[in-house]
């Protein structure tokens, strides 16, 4: 592992602030009915995981795939914020031309293979992506985000086992935010220590890490990548928290879970943790951090303006395009 430079820390800070600004803007736009629909699952609180993991990827070579909580992945991997926001609004210039929406962001160019809304459904796809890497000796790894809740359906178990049997270069990152919708991990998983599931599938267990510390995530995924390319699949359990509940239809997070949420925000906010780390190394960095925040705020404003100006697709031709390969 190379040294983590101040430049890297500042860039991660930038990305995490971008994601937070973007997500809070999405929440606001939803309340204003400029983003519509029933599903909008925000990444606020999780930022360090996407950023720390993706920092290890060779973009365009390594792969990433995730579930519907996908905005942070898209932004961290470098998708244009305007095109990402346009997809939220179902616009023609969105990442998927407005056909996918918030839950189905994707970018072929970045080997970001998409967000998927059937819980666990993307996990065997990750196995397949890794199979291709091994098959063609590409030396590429596949990073898959896994919800804690997703570890309980068959997709998870079958995908991990197959990857284990074939020694594929999969890196499974469980984003353990404590809940699948309203159900605590302890009430859904007979063994709530989720990383221990690795053992059952011949998968290297890197244990639990602090998912709020981008450096911890970066280092763990770095080690995972090395292992995965040499020996086969690796699993990491990153502990995190959802700041905006399950999704926009979840009205319980700010009542039932208000106190717990406040504690996470006060003591384990990923952006605050990183800011502290930066300031410990460079006590003069505060103006730089403020500048980054201001810039990212502007980036998001511009993204919204771009999305606003993009038209809604509305032709039969668009409706019927891409059902089959022509």
């Amino acid at each position: 592992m190379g040294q983590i430079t101040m430049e890297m820390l500042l860039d991660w800070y930038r990305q995490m602030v971008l994601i937070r600004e973007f997500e809070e803007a999405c929440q606001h736009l939803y309340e204003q009915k400029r983003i519509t629909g029933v599903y909008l699952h925000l990444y606020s609180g999780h930022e360090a995981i996407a950023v720390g993991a993706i920092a290890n990827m060779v973009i365009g070579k390594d792969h990433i795939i995730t579930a519907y909580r996908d905005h942070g992945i898209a932004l961290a991997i470098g998708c244009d914020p305007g095109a990402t926001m346009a997809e939220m609004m179902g616009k023609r210039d969105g990442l998927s031309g407005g056909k996918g929406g918030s839950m189905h962001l994707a970018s072929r160019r970045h080997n970001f293979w998409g967000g998927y809304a059937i819980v666990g459904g993307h996990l065997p796809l990750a196995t397949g992506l890794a199979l291709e890497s091994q098959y063609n000796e590409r030396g590429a790894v596949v990073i898959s985000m896994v919800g804690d809740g997703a570890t309980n359906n068959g997709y998870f178990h079958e995908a991990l086992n197959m990857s284990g049997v074939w020694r594929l270069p999969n890196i499974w990152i469980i984003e353990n935010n404590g809940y699948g919708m309203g159900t605590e991990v302890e009430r859904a998983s007979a063994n709530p220590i989720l990383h221990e599931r690795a053992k059952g599938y011949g998968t290297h267990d890197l244990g639990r890490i602090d998912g709020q510390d981008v450096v911890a995530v970066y280092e763990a995924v770095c080690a995972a990548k090395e292992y995965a390319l040499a020996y086969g699949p690796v699993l990491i359990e990153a502990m995190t928290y959802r700041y905006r509940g399950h999704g926009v239809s979840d009205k319980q997070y700010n009542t039932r879970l208000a106190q717990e949420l406040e504690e996470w925000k006060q003591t384990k906010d990923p952006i605050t943790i990183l800011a502290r780390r930066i300031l410990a190394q460079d006590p003069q960095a505060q103006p730089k951090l403020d500048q980054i925040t201001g810039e990212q705020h502007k980036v998001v404003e511009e993204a919204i303006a771009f999305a606003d100006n993009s038209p809604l697709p509305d032709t039969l031709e668009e409706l019927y395009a891409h059902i089959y390969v022509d």
Partner: protein
Amino acid sequence: MAVKNLPMREALHRALHEEMIRDDRVYVMGQEVGRWQGTHRVTRGFLEEFGERRVKDAPISEMAIAGAAVGSAMAGLRPVAEIMTINFAFLALDAIINHAAKIHYMFNGQFTVPMVLRVASGWGDQATATHSHTPEPIFAHFPGLYVATPATPADAYGMLKTSIRDDNPVLFSESIGLYPKPGLVPDDPDYLVPIGKADVKREGQHVTLVTFARGLEWCMGAARELEKEGVQAEVVDMRWLRPLDTETVFASVRKTNRAVIVEEALPMYSFGSELAAQIQEHCFDYLDAPVKRVSSLDVPVPYSKKLEDMVFPTAHKVVAAVKEIL
């Protein structure tokens, strides 16, 4: 009979609540049915009232939810299992089709499977391609399984009770769009709707509109429009896709000599295809025009609002179809 004006969601809540009180063998299982109060609020308050023995919050494990419902039903319980939306029932298809539907037959009547699998169904609100299915006909394809598709609160109430009390497995589909729609419901805990009995929701002599579930809304809307032009449409609400009450349909078509079949689902290999075939087989001499069908367009459902709106049937499309054959 005394009646109450209730939204369908409340009618279902009431039916299930009364059956839970009536029969200790009836229990509820599914994701978020307890602590979260039910994704669709049908099981609201159940956990508090009946406790964890009878209200089971399940992991995200559709295969096991459906399969365990089958097993516990074979052993003598009467599970009312909930799959959060019908889209996720695809993960449970094997347990439903190969086990729930086959076991009574395959073991020559030794076992019964008195279970109800409640599923919320339907599109709208930009749920996108994987979350917008109405695949009830897939389930109705298989002998051994009943398929309930209520369109009104009263039918939902009586049909759920009938389904719970019956000794056969029932796939019970609830249209998400109908949950908030009110209607008069009999105030009688023993109000039952006979299995496999359609209902003529409106009488008329010029054309028969055959439909189920959400389609009733469009057909009644179309009938009101057509009435202004002197056309009296008869509206047959199937209520159950299996058993299929073809006699009621045939009697109506023999009277009106014209039929339009209206459904929310996709057009190919559908309810409409099945019924059109049966009508021509049994009412050929009575038909004055070809049987018409109105359904969703033959596309995956896109996210973007205008594209999504193009996909689905409306009262207006039903009126247009009727006019083509008058």
